């Protein structure tokens, strides 16, 4: 049987691609190692050649930062003296994202292939699979996949599972390193990157689970194949969690060169005419309704046109009459509660911002609230050990800008009907543990 290579993109473009999610239907559950190897053939061995191929492929990290993967691998390889650690980050603390648990539950061997390739390429002796304790389905699928690989006798770096409490910031790189070194999953202040000094002070490559899966396909099919989807600077496909006001919420694999309108059309569209969308998750940015159809998905155009990115691959669509100010405030309040409590500007700043925004969202602002909000947004940005405060205020600033007209209603004290509109996912309760 021929390898299940996806068809080349059509003359226009393929909004929904089938690379990571190719293979058996999702409702048949997790793909077994035997089927995985039959479908894709056994992976090649990793090595410096793969870093070259990944560099040519232009792959960028899918954890949210869109950092060029080959640059991270090169840095880790340069620092490694055969003692590096590879961490697969599958913690997925972002409440709006389901793509990593979906991938790990249905196609764990793609991710594990990628991690093994990474270990061989950068000179690592150990792989850590970092997971949220709460994600039971993922944990089960992964345990079984690891057992399958052991039984098959694959000659690979040993894989250790490290679990964390499910917290928003637990997936931040230094928090991952902290937890994998035996500490709490709280971010650390460090002048060195994890690639130089990470888990147990060893050079460490922390890479999102989806990025690892892309590596597993690039190692097999090459960089030209990868570049058949996406844009020159953001090549390939990406997993997108689509939620909120859409007919068929879920995880989709999309062409990074597509526009949001074509993706929405391909998956059934929205339930009601959207009032806007949050793009990129809780550290993302808000987009006004008129910009949705033409919204680019690639990192460059999204940054240029909207000052944001797709983050870890999220579009959450507001329902008609939904209120971006109200939803943004709910998210801000959640993020204020999810601070690791370590840095004064983040702890105090997000709490103060949340209080003022709760008043504004309820159409009961005190004099000077909006001016203080704008000042505090500028004041807390860049002042934490991690980017938690930056992400939180970026999301808020995006809402204030995208819904500036509607904000006037809140400031004038008139009630906003958006408070009681269902259809946008509310933030989950905050956690209280860090291990």
């Amino acid at each position: 049987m021929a390898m299940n290579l996806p068809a080349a993109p059509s003359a226009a473009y393929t909004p929904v691609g089938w690379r990571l999610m190719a293979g058996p239907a999702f409702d048949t559950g997790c793909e077994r190692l035997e089927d995985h190897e039959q479908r894709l053939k056994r992976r090649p061995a990793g090595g410096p050649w793969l870093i070259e191929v990944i560099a040519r492929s232009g792959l960028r990290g899918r954890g949210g930062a869109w950092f060029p993967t080959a640059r991270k691998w090169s840095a880790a390889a340069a620092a490694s003296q055969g003692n590096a650690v590879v961490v697969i980050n599958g913690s997925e603390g972002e409440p709006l994202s389901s793509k990593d648990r979906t991938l790990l539950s249905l196609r764990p061997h793609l991710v594990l292939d990628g991690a093994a390739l990474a270990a061989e390429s950068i000179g690592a002796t150990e792989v850590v699979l970092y997971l949220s304790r709460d994600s039971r389905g993922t944990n089960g699928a992964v345990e079984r996949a690891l057992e399958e690989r052991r039984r098959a006798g694959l000659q690979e770096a040993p894989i250790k599972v490290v679990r964390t409490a499910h917290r928003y910031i637990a997936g931040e790189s230094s928090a991952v390193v902290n937890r994998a070194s035996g500490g709490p999953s709280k971010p650390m202040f460090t002048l060195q990157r994890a690639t130089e000094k990470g888990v147990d002070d060893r050079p460490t490559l922390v890479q999102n689970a989806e990025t690892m899966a892309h590596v597993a396909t690039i190692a097999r099919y090459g960089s030209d194949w990868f570049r058949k989807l996406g844009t020159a600077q953001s090549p390939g496909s990406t997993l997108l969690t689509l939620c909120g006001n859409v007919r068929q919420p879920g995880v989709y694999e999309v062409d990074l060169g597509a526009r949001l309108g074509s993706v929405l059309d391909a998956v059934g569209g929205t339930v009601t005419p959207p009032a806007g969308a949050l793009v990129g998750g809780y550290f993302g940015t808000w987009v006004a309704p008129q910009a949705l159809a033409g919204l680019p998905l690639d990192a460059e155009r999204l940054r240029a046109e909207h000052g944001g990115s797709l983050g870890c691959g999220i579009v959450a669509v507001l329902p008609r009459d939904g209120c971006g100010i109200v939803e943004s405030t709910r998210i801000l309040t959640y993020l204020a509660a999810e601070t690791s409590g370590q840095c004064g500007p983040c702890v105090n700043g997000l709490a103060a911002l949340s209080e003022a925004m709760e008043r504004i969202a309820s159409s009961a602002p005190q004099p000077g609230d909006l001016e203080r909000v704008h000042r505090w947004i500028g004041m807390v940005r860049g002042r934490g050990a991690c980017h938690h405060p930056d992400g939180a205020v970026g999301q808020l600033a995006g809402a204030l800008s995208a819904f500036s007209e509607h904000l006037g209603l809140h400031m004038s004290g008139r009630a906003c009907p958006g408070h009681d509109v269902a259809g946008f996912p509310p933030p989950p309760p905050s956690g209280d543990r860090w291990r």
Partner: protein
Amino acid sequence: MSELVQRKLRVNPILCDGYGYCAEIVPERIALDDWGFPIVAAESIEDEEVLGHARRAVGTCPRLALLIEEVPSRLTERA
């Protein structure tokens, strides 16, 4: 001739408890935010007097949260 290293004042925000002494000692680089935590200017310190103040602030911080980060200037990178 340029300096071989650039010196930047940094605060470890995890250690910092907002005593605020640093803003008194090196007002050229540090202001306090609305909650009393230091806002440290990002630019490198070229002036000897400011550098002296910065060093004193580093030594005075009760939480040992201040540091002077030395980063190679572009000149040394090229060399």
